């Protein structure tokens, strides 16, 4: 696909749009359809489009596999840390009401942080799966 001039050009224009749309879906989970999981998948789709058109070598320079592994575990850590924080502040595990003076605002903040963790983990894991698909050592 690298020989195709039109595809290369349009990918360059489409990547920022898809990635920004993914982040929009990430942060507007409570206003419309969306949330962490969907946003993570859309974000990884943007990177997969880039990887397919420009080749895996460029992709591994943009996002190395080691960084992706770190990100995948960071997302889980954010999730767990939020739960432990509420526990330390005197509530139950993932009891968002404690996070702020107003329970509603606390729930808002809590869900946003949790969704952020989910989004990071899902997009990193999706990309790790894609890397595993394209790994030539398992074939041949």
């Amino acid at each position, binding site marked *: 696909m690298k020989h195709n*001039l039109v595809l290369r*050009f349009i990918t360059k224009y489409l990547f*920022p*749009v898809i990635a920004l749309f993914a*982040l929009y879906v990430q942060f507007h989970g409570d206003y419309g359809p969306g949330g962490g999981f969907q946003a993570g998948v859309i974000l990884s789709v943007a990177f997969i489009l880039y990887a397919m058109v*420009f080749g895996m070598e460029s992709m591994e320079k943009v996002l190395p596999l080691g960084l992706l592994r770190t990100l995948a575990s960071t997302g889980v850590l954010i999730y767990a840390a939020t739960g432990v924080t509420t526990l330390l502040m005197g509530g139950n595990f993932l009891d968002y009401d404690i996070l702020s003076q107003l329970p509603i605002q606390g729930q808002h903040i809590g869900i946003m942080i949790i969704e952020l963790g989910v989004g990071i983990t899902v997009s990193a894991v999706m990309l790790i799966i894609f890397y595993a698909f394209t790994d030539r050592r398992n074939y041949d």
Partner: protein
Amino acid sequence: MSYTVKHNISLTVLLFALWFGLSGLFDVLMLSLGIASTLLVVYFSYRMDTIDRQKHPARLTLQLLRFWLFLSREVISANIDVVRRIFRPGKNISPQLFQLPMTKKTDLARVIYANSITLTPGTVCVKVNRKAITVHSLSKESADDLRSGRMADAVPEDERDEET
């Protein structure tokens, strides 16, 4: 250097406008999240630009607007032609495969040219390179129309894009 900075600033502004159009919320929280998201995306796209050494200009000119008007008129007339051919009984098409010389000098103009040929029903651009463009057309009339160079003349070209 200055070109890269200009490119990134225009990309940031366009992406933030897109965020604002999608979200439509005036919250402080949402606006700051929008700025953060835009900067993250611009950072990744800058990284990609430096890795594969391809930068693409984002310029909106009055010329482009005029070209869009021209293109939409072409698309509508070509649509009517193809629909007529679909419903005409018997032998209704005369497919052609031919080459046109590439008159455009910059990659951006080449891509706009190829995509507008494809967007017009009745002609599909099959192959693009620096020297020529191969087109498959549904009828002899639309092939002759392309050969006359009306479309090629209408595509706007900015010589400054070459400095990428």
